[in-house]
């Protein structure tokens, strides 16, 4: 357990040494590490996490969008990353204001993000700058509104 703890710290340290401004906050909960990254640093931080020899987070598991309505910043994006090399998981968290829900796409870095970002766009209405094909994926193309937002009624609008 001690080695796992020290390794965890070294991962965060590595990120902080690279750019202290890219790490806004580190949250530990139930053995999971979450790194909060300011919106403007997301793309750079992602590139660093993939390319750095001591990290190699090459596998993007999932992107989860959470709506905190009515709390601001309203949206949270959680990027679940896995380093196959070091058997390590990390969660990147980006907070996005409700009046300007957009963030840079990470699809050029992890092609797996393509559909995850389309899903977040489709169901939460978050726009991803630089996404190759940002269209609805689960809902019909002419659907109005974003069903997973908290102010969207469960039964839909009638």
């Amino acid at each position, binding site marked *: 357990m001690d080695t796992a703890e020290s390794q965890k710290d070294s991962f965060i340290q590595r990120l902080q040494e690279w750019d202290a401004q890219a790490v806004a906050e580190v949250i530990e909960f139930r053995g999971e590490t979450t790194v909060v990254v300011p919106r403007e640093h997301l793309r750079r931080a992602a590139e660093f996490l993939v390319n750095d020899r001591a990290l190699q987070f090459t596998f993007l598991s999932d992107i989860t969008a959470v709506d905190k309505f009515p709390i601001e910043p309203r949206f949270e994006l959680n990027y679940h990353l896995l380093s*196959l090399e070091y058997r390590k998981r990390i969660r990147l968290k980006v907070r996005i204001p409700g009046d300007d829900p957009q963030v840079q796409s990470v699809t050029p870095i992890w092609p797996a993000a393509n559909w995850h970002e389309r899903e977040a766009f489709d169901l939460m209405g978050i726009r991803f700058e630089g996404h190759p094909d940002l269209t609805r994926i689960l809902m019909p193309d002419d659907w109005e509104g974003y069903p997973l937002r908290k102010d969207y009624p469960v039964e839909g609008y009638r």
Partner: protein
Amino acid sequence: MATIETPAGASQTMVLNMGPQHPSTHGVLRIVLELDGEIVISARPHIGYLHTGIEKNCENKTYSQAITLTDRLDYLAPLSNNLCYCLAVERLIGLEIPKRAQYIRVLLTELTRVASHLVWLGTHAIDLGAMTVFLYCFREREEIMRIFELVSGQRMMTSYFRIGGLALEPPPGWLERIARFMDTFPSHVDEYETLLTQNRIWLARTKGVGVLSREDAIALGVSGPTLRGSGVAYDVRKMFPYSSYEEFDFNVPVETAGDCYARYLVRVAEIRESIKIILQAMKIVPAAGPIRTEAPGIVPPSREEMKTSIEGLIYHFKIFTEGFAPPPGEVYQCIESPRGELGFFVASDGSAKPYRVKVRAPSFVNLQAVSKLVEGRLIADVVACIGTTDIVLGEVDR
């Protein structure tokens, strides 16, 4: 009349719509294919025909009620979904599960894996024209369904794993029933292999077809047997053991060719590894002992206690009317489902209903790779490539 001009030397392409009602798309998947003669130029999957808003629904149910929704995601492996969701909520609360319940969970999810791989093998084979394997596979799967019915009361939508343990005590004789099935089952796997592994038609239809390189597989986030067929030994059971998997002795089959045949070999080898795990679990699962952890207010008391003690009655009433409230926080729990890394992200705001439930469905991610597999290949290979990624549209669309 307008004339359509074709540039000299350029070929014309045709757009072909495949699905959503197509027998080999395994549900309601629609793929728009752009063809040049018989060669696929591009393939674009259109999904969402089965979207039922399960994630939204989970936000409006209590933590326990949401379990029934998870059955309906991957309907070929309902117990894997139950397990992943329960583990996520248990970790959110910080519950320890009794060993007996953990072993039973392992035993049943491995049976689920076998059943799911059998459906995959049977349908994949029938897609490629081998009818016999289909009938054989469904014969054995039927016996597993009967075992599930015996244990949980349901063939498919089991909801057998609950937060804190299991729904009910397995009935007497359940282990003997599984043992009887296990006596003959390994020889049936040999039977499938004699029909396919060296079959020249099978080899021609799968070898070298739909090649996914190691780099592409990782970049596209592919997981499960599809990833291991491309030479990456990533199995959640080994890398991040859950539910006491670290106590079991099994191998992770890996092939490096990355084609349909490699994925076939991986899945058949996985059936054999699952048999190994099931046999070990049957040996070590205690005959008696608690199947649920003691956590008043979170885990329902036994029927006996509810009928005889006032605390039991109060807790029972509160759990089933109000539910329970885990501490605020969020967890991401993943397990190795038959299709790959199944993950549940569960966020709590301290109320009795999950604030957000997100399902990282392995089929959803693996389906992204299908375009990569089919581009540049013959249209006849499309069916093989869809079959080999083993998608279940229930969890793709959620």
